[in-house]
C-alpha cells in the first residue's frame, strides 16, 4: 500500500493500529520475557513478587540444579534421540511419497491421494490403534516413538498434510522440461529424484525438518500412551511430573521456614526448566521462520 495514499483519517487509523499491535506484542512477549528473568533471579524475590521487569539477585542456582537432575537429563537425551531419528524417517517417507505423487504421469495418482487423505478425516480411534500397536510388539519400544503412526489420528494426519505441502512444492518448482530432458538422456526416476529434485528442494526440506523435529520434541501424548518404563520417557513426560503434577503444594499450609524456602526454590527451578525445554525449539525458530511460513503458505494455497 503506497504511503502517499493515506488521508488524514487513514493516518489516525494507522496510529491506532500501531498502539493496538504494540500492546498485543507486549502481551505475547511479556510472559516469555518474565520466565527468562525469573529463571536467573533470586527465588525468594521472584516468589514474593519483587521481580517484574528486571532480574534481581542474579543467580544460576536453578540451572545448576537442573543439570544435576538425572531424570530430566535422561528425558532430554531420549527426546534428542527420538527427535533426530524420527525426523529423518519422517523426511524420507514424506519426500519420497510427495515426489511420486507430484508426478502428473503417475497412473493411479488420484486414487493414492484419496487413500492418504481419507485418513485425515477418519481413523480407527485410540483403542483399536493401541491394541494393534501392542499386538505387533511395538508397545514400550524405541520404535513406537519414531514411527509416524498410531495413537492420535493427528500424528499421521500431520504427515499426510506435510505430504500435500511437499507435493505442492515439487509441482510448483520442478519444471517439467527438466524431467523431459533427463528422461531423454536415459535418467531413471529414482536417479532424477536423488540427483535433480532433492538438490533443488532445500527450502521444503528445511520446513519439513522443523515441522517434524518440533513435533517430536514437543510430543507428549505418544509417550504417555505407548511407553511404560520411565527410562524411555521423553522430556515432556518428565517435565509434566515436575511442572504440573505438584500443583497441589499450594494447598499445603505454609508455616515452616525451611519448607517455605524449599518450595520457593522448587517453584523457581520451574522457570529454568521451561527455558531449558524450549531452547532447542526457540533457537531453531528464527533461522527457519521465513521458510517455515512459506511452507505453510504453499500448503494452504492448495491444500
Amino acid at each position, binding site marked *: 500500500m503506497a504511503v502517499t495514499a493515506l488521508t488524514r483519517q487513514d493516518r489516525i487509523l494507522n496510529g491506532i493500529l500501531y498502539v493496538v499491535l504494540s500492546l*498485543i506484542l507486549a502481551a505475547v512477549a511479556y510472559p516469555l520475557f518474565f520466565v527468562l528473568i525469573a529463571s536467573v533471579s533470586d527465588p525468594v524475590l521472584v516468589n514474593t513478587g519483587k521481580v517484574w521487569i528486571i532480574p534481581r539477585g542474579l543467580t544460576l542456582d536453578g540451572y545448576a540444579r537442573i543439570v544435576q537432575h538425572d531424570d530430566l537429563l535422561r528425558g532430554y537425551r531420549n527426546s534428542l534421540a527420538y527427535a533426530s531419528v524420527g525426523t529423518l524417517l519422517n523426511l524420507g517417507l514424506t519426500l519420497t*511419497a510427495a515426489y511420486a505423487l507430484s508426478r502428473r504421469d503417475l497412473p493411479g495418482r488420484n486414487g493414492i491421494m484419496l487413500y492418504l487423505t481419507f485418513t485425515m478425516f477418519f481413523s*480407527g480411534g485410540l483403542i483399536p490403534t493401541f491394541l494393534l500397536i501392542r499386538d505387533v510388539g511395538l508397545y514400550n519400544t524405541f520404535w513406537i516413538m519414531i514411527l509416524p*503412526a498410531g495413537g492420535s489420528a493427528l500424528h*499421521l494426519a500431520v504427515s499426510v498434510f506435510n505430504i500435500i505441502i511437499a507435493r505442492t512444492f515439487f509441482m510448483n518448482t520442478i519444471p*517439467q522440461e527438466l524431467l523431459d530432458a533427463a528422461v531423454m538422456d536415459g535418467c531413471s526416476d529414482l536417479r532424477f529424484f536423488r540427483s535433480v529434485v532433492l538438490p533443488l528442494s532445500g527450502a521444503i526440506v528445511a520446513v519439513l525438518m522443523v515441522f517434524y523435529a518440533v513435533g517430536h520434541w*514437543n510430543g507428549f501424548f505418544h509417550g504417555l500412551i505407548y511407553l511404560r518404563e520411565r527410562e524411555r520417557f521423553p522430556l515432556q513426560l518428565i517435565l509434566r511430573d515436575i511442572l504440573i503434577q505438584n*500443583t497441589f503444594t499450594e494447598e499445603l499450609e505454609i508455616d515452616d521456614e525451611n519448607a517455605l524456602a524449599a518450595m520457593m526454590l522448587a517453584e523457581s527451578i520451574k522457570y529454568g526448566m521451561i527455558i531449558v525445554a524450549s531452547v532447542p525449539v526457540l533457537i531453531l525458530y528464527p533461522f527457519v521462520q521465513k521458510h517455515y511460513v512459506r511452507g505453510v503458505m504453499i500448503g494452504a494455497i492448495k491444500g
Partner: protein
Amino acid sequence: MQRTAVEPLEVRSTPLVVRMVRSYQLYLLLLPTVALVFIFQYVPMYGVTIAFKNFKPHLGIIGSDWIGLRHFIRFFESPSFWRLIRNTTFLSGYELLVGFPIPIVLALMMNMVTGARFKRTVQMVTYAPHFISTVVIVGMLGVFLSKNFGLTNHFLDALGGERVFFLGKEQWFRSLYVFSGVWQNAGWGTIIYLAALSAIDPELHEAAIVDGATLWQRVWNIDIPGILPTIVILLILNVGQIMGVGFEKAFLMQNALNLQVSEIISTFVYKVGLLDARFSFSAAVGLFNAVINFVLLVSVNRFAKVLGQSGLW
C-alpha cells in the same frame, strides 16, 4: 501441465499397464508410506468392530462375541454422558467463539499497518509461542497463576484484591484453556489469512485509492470479501472438529478439583480404555465421537454450499 502438445496424445495411446510398468520406480518411492498408512491407519479401522463386541483379550478382536449396541446404550444411559457432551461442546464452542475471529482481526490489522519492519516484528514475536509444547504451556499457567507464588496473584494482592486459586476453580478452567490457547496460537493462525490477503489483486486497492476510498473502506470492501472463502473453509474445518477437542491440553490441565468441567470425551476414552482397560466400552465412546464429528463436518460443508460458498469438496 507444461508438457508439449504431443504428450497427452502419447499418454492416451499408451496402454495403462505399460505406463504403470514404466513408473515402477515411482511406486517404489510410494511403497513405504502406503504400507505404513495401511498398517497403522486402515487396519485399526477394522478394529472399530471391538465397539460392538464383548472384547476378551485371550479371544482377540475377531474371536470375541458380538453384543450389538450394548456398549453404546450403556454410555447413553450413564450419568456421565450428558456431562461429557456438555463439557466437550462448551469447551470447544467457547474456543471457537473466541479463538476463531481473533486471528482474522489480527491478520487484517497486520496487513493494514504501514511499516514493514514493525509488521515483521509483530509476526516474529506472535508466532513464537506456537512452538512451545503443551506441557510447558500448562506448566507456565501453573507458575504464573500459583496462589502463593504466582505473578498474577502478586498483582491481585498489590491491587488489594483477594488471592485466587485459579487452577483449582471449576469456573476458571474454560477461560484459562481458551485464552492461553489464544496467547499461543492467535499469531500463528494469521499466516493463512495473510497468505490469502497477499493474493488479493493490488490493482483493486489502487483503483479504490484513485476513487478516494479510505483505508477502512478498502479493508471492508476489498480485504474482507477477499479472504471470505478462506474464512469459510477454516470455519467448516473447525466446526467439524467441535467434538474432537485435543486431548493433551485438557488432560494436562485436569485436576481433582476441576474434573466436573474438565473431563471431556477424549480424556474419558483414555481413562476408561487404557487405564481401566475397558477396551470395548471405551472404543464405543470413541466411535460415537468420531461419527458425530464426521456428521458435523458433512453438514457444515453442505450448509456452506447452500449459502453459496465453496465447500471443502
